[in-house]
């Protein structure tokens, strides 16, 4: 059955401009990472990955404890922690703050959690103006698009696309020079930063022992969003927690390197409260929204729980040969690539995304580069097993199941296996092409064989199997 997913894959594969854009951009990100994790540059890289893994494992396995510790520490310095089960609850919190502060303009910095719950749309629905300040996110917001990549949201757009978007939505004269396009966005944002009553950020980390939100960025928009407005609201998935500020020495070293190949991004902000008495500037209100939106469900399975270790560096996308072909928008949710393929079915139910975990050749490149060592291929395999269990429950895909049952029956009965595989060599209905590859008769071009032949030729069944050759040689 052809799904929306299949159709998007097909259209992306057929778009040669897009293919080149994705391949080049991800290729560059791969190169950048490789340079900064090389043995001679960072000899303890593998130890850092292991440490990062253990920190996240410990934090996630004791999540309730660290969330409560985080909350106590935020409250102790006058901040407010809100617990929200879904996007609606987040919107309600923001709306009530906006109402109390009598402000209609919100400036946002990049956050996957807010993308996930479509916060901008929810707020706009209530008449608030919520503006993305990250350059890439701003372009996407103007054009009503979802991020194409976790760290490079507008990876699929060229300067000419951006020129079109600015002309169409801002009514500006066509500008194709990237530096000037950047300047346009800067000038628009300057006013927004200074007029907005509320700044909303995400969080790269929530630090339990400090009650702090850590933000990692390059443009300075997150700093501005959290410094200029009177109210700072951070929206964070509950899995962002780490126990101690000192753990950042490990986490920051692997995050920037994995994401963009930077030992540290341009700005790393560690924010723990409103402006204090002995400080000149900073917000008057500090709120942290702890978002569930399906995360607590993912916790239940001990090995799939690893999916929540993710620090959203995007390295698995860049290194994934599938992502590099099908891009970000083929994926059904805002999270794309290998991490999207493992978290989407867990958040939305495997029965609602039955194909996603199968869209992988299981090459393992994602797991190899994951800075927190999530065994992504293993989780994919488990999700495949879950998908087959669900299919069994509702009696779908019966033909495939029957085929594998027959396979298992035969493959565990050596005599039968020998007899049947022997027949394949003797009564092979396939002929041979001039180059020795199989010539498949029309009546056989069905199902998997047809799919195989749609893209490549088939090696012929050998006239003599290994088994036969071995027997003959041994005499």
């Amino acid at each position, binding site marked *: 059955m052809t799904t929306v997913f299949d159709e998007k*894959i097909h259209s992306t594969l057929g778009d040669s401009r897009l293919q080149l854009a994705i391949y080049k951009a991800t290729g560059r990100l791969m190169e950048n990472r490789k340079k900064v994790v090389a043995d001679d540059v960072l000899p303890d890289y593998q130890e850092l990955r292991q440490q990062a893994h253990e920190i996240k494992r410990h934090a996630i396995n004791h999540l309730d404890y660290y969330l409560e510790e985080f909350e106590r520490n935020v409250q102790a310095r006058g901040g407010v922690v809100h617990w929200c089960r879904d996007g609606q609850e987040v919107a309600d919190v923001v709306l009530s703050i906006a109402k109390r502060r009598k402000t209609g303009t919100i400036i946002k910095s990049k956050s996957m959690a807010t993308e996930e719950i479509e916060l901008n749309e929810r707020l706009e629905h209530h008449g608030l103006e919520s503006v993305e300040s990250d350059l890439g996110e701003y372009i996407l917001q103007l054009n009503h698009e979802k991020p194409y990549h976790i760290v490079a949201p507008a990876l699929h757009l060229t300067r000419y696309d951006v020129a079109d978007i600015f002309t169409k939505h801002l009514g500006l004269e066509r500008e194709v020079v990237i530096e000037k396009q950047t300047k346009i966005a800067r000038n628009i944002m300057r006013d927004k930063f200074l007029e907005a009553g509320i700044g909303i950020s995400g969080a790269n980390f929530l630090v339990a022992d400090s009650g702090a939100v850590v933000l990692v960025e390059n443009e300075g928009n997150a700093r501005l969003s959290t410094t200029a407005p009177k109210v700072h609201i951070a929206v964070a998935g509950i899995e962002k927690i780490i126990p101690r500020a000192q753990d950042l020495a490990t986490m920051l070293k692997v995050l920037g390197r994995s994401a963009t190949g930077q030992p540290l991004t341009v700005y790393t902000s560690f924010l723990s409260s409103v402006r204090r008495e002995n400080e000149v500037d900073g917000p008057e209100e500090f709120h942290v929204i702890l978002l569930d939106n399906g995360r607590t469900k993912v916790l239940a399975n001990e090995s799939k729980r690893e999916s929540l270790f993710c620090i959203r560096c995007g390295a698995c996308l860049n290194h994934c040969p599938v992502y590099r072909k099908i891009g970000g928008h083929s994926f059904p949710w805002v999270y794309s690539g290998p991490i999207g393929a493992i978290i989407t079915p867990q958040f939305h139910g495997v029965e609602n995304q039955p194909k996603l975990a*199968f869209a992988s050749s299981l090459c393992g*490149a994602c797991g190899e580069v994951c800075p927190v060592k999530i065994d992504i291929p293993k989780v994919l395999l488990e999700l495949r097993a879950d998908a087959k269990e669900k299919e069994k429950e509702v009696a779908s895909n019966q033909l495939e199941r029957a085929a594998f049952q027959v396979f*298992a029956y035969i*493959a565990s009965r*050596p005599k039968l296996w020998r007899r049947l595989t022997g027949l394949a060599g003797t009564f092979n209905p396939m002929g041979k092409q001039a180059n020795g590859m199989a010539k498949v008769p029309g009546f056989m071009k069905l199902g*998997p064989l047809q799919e*195989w032949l*749609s*893209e490549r030729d088939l090696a012929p069944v050998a006239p003599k199997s290994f088994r036969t050759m071995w027997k003959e040689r041994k005499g």
Partner: protein
Amino acid sequence: MAKRVTIFVTCIVDQLFPNAGMAMASVLEQLGYEVDFPEAQTCCGQPAFNTGYRDEARTVALHTMKVLKGAEYVIVPSGSCTSMISHHYHDLFPKDSPEYHEAEELSHRVYEFSKFLTDVAKVEDFGANYDGVVTFHDACHGLRDLKVKDGPRRMLANVKGLELREHDTCEECCGFGGTFSVKFAELSGHMVRTKLDSIVRSGADTVAAVDCSCLMQIQGAISRAGLPIKTKHLAEILASR
């Protein structure tokens, strides 16, 4: 007395690429090993496992574990089938069940062919001759699960008449992925053609690998493109005279 090794040739090699299996056996015999091929072997069960059919995979795994019981060294001409046995069999059984421990124990006895040569036999020159320009494709499971990387290259470099030339995407997947290749055929086709472009750029006339399933995919694309490039299992080159 000659040391005994057991070969598990895999279903693909048995049916489609028997020469790779024979070449592996002859290289091992050349080193003085007595090669045993247990007749009862079938398939490692990976197709079922990777497609999510755990019960079916378990049935086949139990059979293979029985067949390989007692073998001191099990040698497999495939990185992914080796990895299925050494890295995934135990996941099919409840932790601390007898089968779990049996699978764990087996995992230490199973070797991908080139890994056996580098780590156990410790021989990398077989006096082989091969006239051609060869590029080596790092099959994913061999590379990432089993850390097969430099060994085959050193062995190829020792082959007389052979020029080893890297292709720039040597560590990138060929797009096979078992049932992935037919469930997402168009995507798989794009992946193998990217691989093929890189192989063509390298100027090699032969692609070598330690996995016949990758070679089947690459060979299929080569044939469809009408290119004069051969595919060879590493063992076939090491056994050439």
